[in-house]
């Protein structure tokens, strides 16, 4: 008995292996915790959420105020000359700032119009506003009984809270007005800086569907959302975010559909953003996402207003930032990354077919090189014999193991793709032909790679272009290399392990509280109508169950 027990005690090598098996996950966990703690400073975290809730009043306050320093912002003195002097000394050194002093004839007093070059319609400023101020404005208009803002005939007219805010707005492009005898500086005329015209979205082109894409101007973008239809449900909430340079940010949602808890969550995360400057909505995305270590995006970005509005109608929330045509949609699930608005615009059969095609393409883009490596290097016996023989014959001249072979071609294709973005438009196609066709052909002839691999890599590359979200495509490109490494080490077993790890990661991932793989798991049968299939519109009677909307009926009669 004892001897048989002793005989079964593994030797010291096994214990050594066990120690390694123990140390690696512990080390990885330790590293993960350190990384997480380090990377989460200055961004939203689930752990900090409770703390934030306590400090919410404070953060909300600082979000609504122009800047943290504005608590001590200089107030208007009420004295015209002193205020003007203060403005001059604060921002007067800017060469593009104009001070236009003028008399108000009916009032026998004077005022100053302050504006920045190029941000105002000069003609309007000169002809209408100056004319009105100099010759028509009377004492009544300045002393309005209604509120603190005088009754002047401008649609955009606000009184600045203090000098700091006034200066800031003037430099942002508002026309500022300072009148002798008025306690506040006034802001008239919205800034009208240079911007481009509205064009078709470049990154999300469709054959069928609206051609309208967002532009860089926030007010235009919100107006595009409003233009989608008559409703009093669409609500826009404005924030001003940034410590050094502030930017306007708008949260859009349907107030009678969205889940209030989700809205609360988004607002909390937005108000905890602590950043100098938000250059693009990508900054917002990275500062509010749940898990910054995940390769998957947890916020969807889009330039299509129609996509945003249909997401809002499902009960999601959109975040728009001034200065970028990319709006963000939260929460996002994995299946959304493979859906295109066109699925809904075409009839349901072609829509479903295309959608399934995209799922297959995503699988290929992720797995094809890994499968190639594991079949060629490890299990040629698992593919049909004739095929295996012809592949091996074609590979005879190739001096590398399959992983090196695949890496050579994959990396060069990635380089080609990266270069393609930067190539000037007239050169692009020519370079594509040189890079893709000639180099591929030459590589095969030179015996560096096998012709079969060229097919695999080309199919992979094309498949990854069929994914409607560009950023999701990048994720799959990234993970493809991880899959290739797994396959190179353990063949089919490694590939399966890679798939299982990916599944494990995806099931842990959440986007604003919604599990990333819904409706596959947690299983929500109702939402399967809009997953691999796109059910006929008449059958999609309810909004997605995963969003727990207030009002989940899409039709008046269910």
């Amino acid at each position, binding site marked *: 008995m004892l001897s048989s027990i002793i*005989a*079964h*005690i*593994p030797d010291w090598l*096994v*214990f050594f*292996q*066990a*120690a*390694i*098996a*123990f140390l*690696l*996950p*512990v080390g990885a*966990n330790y590293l993960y915790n350190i990384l997480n703690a380090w990377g989460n400073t200055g961004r939203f975290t689930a752990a900090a959420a409770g703390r934030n809730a306590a400090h919410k009043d404070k953060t909300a306050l600082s979000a609504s105020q122009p800047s943290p320093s504005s608590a001590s912002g200089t107030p208007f003195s009420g004295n015209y000359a002193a205020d003007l002097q203060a403005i001059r000394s604060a921002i007067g050194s800017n060469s593009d700032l104009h001070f236009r002093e003028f008399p108000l004839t009916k009032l026998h007093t004077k005022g100053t119009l302050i504006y920045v070059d190029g941000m105002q319609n000069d003609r309007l400023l000169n002809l209408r506003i100056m004319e009105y101020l100099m010759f028509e404005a009377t004492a009544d208009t300045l002393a309005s009984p209604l509120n603190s803002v005088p009754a002047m005939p401008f649609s955009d007219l606000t009184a600045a809270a203090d000098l700091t805010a006034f200066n800031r707005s003037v430099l942002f492009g508002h026309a500022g007005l300072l009148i002798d005898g008025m306690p506040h500086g006034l802001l008239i005329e919205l800034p009208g800086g240079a911007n481009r015209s509205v064009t078709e979205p470049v990154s999300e082109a469709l054959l069928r569907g609206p051609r309208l894409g967002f532009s860089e101007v926030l007010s235009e973008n919100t107006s595009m959302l409003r233009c989608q239809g008559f409703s009093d449900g669409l609500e826009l909430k404005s924030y001003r975010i940034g410590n050094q340079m502030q930017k306007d940010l708008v949260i859009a949602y349907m107030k009678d559909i969205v*889940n209030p*808890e*989700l809205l609360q*969550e988004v607002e909390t995360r937005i108000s905890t953003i602590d950043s100098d400057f938000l250059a693009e909505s990508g900054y917002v995305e990275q500062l509010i996402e749940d898990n910054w270590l995940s390769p998957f995006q947890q916020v969807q970005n889009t330039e299509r207003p129609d996509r945003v509005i249909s997401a809002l109608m499902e009960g999601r929330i959109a975040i728009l930032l001034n200065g970028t045509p990319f709006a963000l949609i939260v929460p996002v699930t994995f299946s959304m990354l493979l859906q295109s608005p066109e699925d809904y615009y075409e009839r349901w059969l072609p829509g479903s077919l295309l959608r399934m095609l995209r799922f297959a393409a995503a699988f290929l883009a992720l797995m094809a090189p890994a499968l190639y490596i594991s079949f060629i290097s*490890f*299990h040629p016996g*698992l*593919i*049909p*014999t004739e095929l295996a023989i012809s592949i091996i014959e074609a590979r005879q001249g190739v001096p590398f193991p399959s992983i090196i072979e695949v890496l050579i071609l994959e990396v060069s294709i990635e380089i080609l793709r990266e270069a393609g973005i930067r190539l000037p438009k007239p050169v692009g196609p020519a370079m594509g032909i040189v890079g893709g066709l000639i180099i591929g052909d030459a590589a095969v002839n030179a015996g560096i790679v096998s012709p079969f691999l060229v097919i695999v890599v080309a199919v992979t590359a094309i498949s990854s272009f069929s994914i409607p979200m560009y950023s999701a495509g990048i994720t799959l490109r990234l993970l493809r290399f991880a899959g290739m490494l797994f396959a190179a080490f*353990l*063949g*089919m*077993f*490694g590939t*399966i*392990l890679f*798939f*299982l*790890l990916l*599944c*494990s*990661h995806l*099931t*842990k991932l*959440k986007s*604003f*509280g919604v*599990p990333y*793989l819904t409706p*596959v*798991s*947690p*299983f929500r049968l109702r939402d399967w109508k809009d997953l691999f299939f796109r059910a006929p519109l008449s059958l999609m009677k309810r909004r997605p169950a995963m969003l*727990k909307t207030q009002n989940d009926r899409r039709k008046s009669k269910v």
Partner: protein
Amino acid sequence: MFTRTDDKITASQAAVFLNNSVLGAGILTLPRGVSEAVKTPDSWISILLSGVIVMLVILLMVKLSQQFPGQTVFQYAGRISGKFIGGLLCLLLAIYFVVLAGFEIRSLAEVTLFFLLEGTPIWAVIVPFIWAGTYLVCGGINSIARVFQIILPISIVVLLISYGVSLRLFNLDHLRPVLSDGIAPVLRGLKPTVLVYTGCEVTMTLVAFMQQPRQAVKAMLAGIGLPLCLYLLTVLVVIGGLSIDSAITSTWPTIDLIRSFEITGFFVERLEFPLMVIWLMQMFCNFCSFFFQASLGFSQIFRLKLKPVIFVMVPLIFLASMVPKSVGDVFALGDAIGNMGIALFILIPLLHSGIWLLRKKGVKQNG
């Protein structure tokens, strides 16, 4: 609540969890194990009978667990039979789960080394697999159940397709005559068939994790019903296709059946490859389930945090998987596990239900 903070699973998730804990190595080995014991083609009757027995066992476990809502067996056993005895039995159960996890992963490694990765050192297969499992188990029962939900449908579809295609070899004569030697061989086959259901002990912890424990009976019976059907199908198809004699002589009869024919004009000529893929994934589920149960057991018995316990389990499971020296040892370990499972069944659910009933009656009479 928009964001769920509690780590609970739905009834369907619980059913899938139980199913994936039970459905594992047996798919490949059951036809041999049962045929060896029965020696007549009546093994499918044994499967049915043992399935009914296991269902009764599970019913007992659920009923017992429902008396203690929100508590796993590791927590309530001490309340029934006293801290010391209860703790000891629970420790036994937790060790049982460790050994079971080691066994599952070892049989996985054996199959992988035999069919996929000849010549690879065995630790190179086992260790990455344990690591992948660790990553999943750290996510808690919800993540595990969700991965199971993804994998199960794929497994079932591939399994059914493989069996369906292999029907071309099916010969009803291999299954005849029915009950030629009377009922005795069927009863002999009960033990090896009950053994493939080892792992159903997870029921005693699953009920505690359910959102609606009242649906537990239905969920758990559904969870054991599916593997019962699949095992029955496996035995019918394999013995019908290979005949009882070749089923006894081959190590992995199911794979041998699938390897024995070719489908021409298809990308993969033999379905053994997809079968291997889903079997590996199914084993991963199996392994993760026991890994989680073992960690949960140790953490609840000794009142430790779950995560450090998970990490400590890694080398233990590795050692457990390395104890058998050969394939023969692995199968011997499998038998030992089966016996251990029966002993544990008598000790924990049966004994504890008895004590609980007595105590309750006693309270009533006194009150």
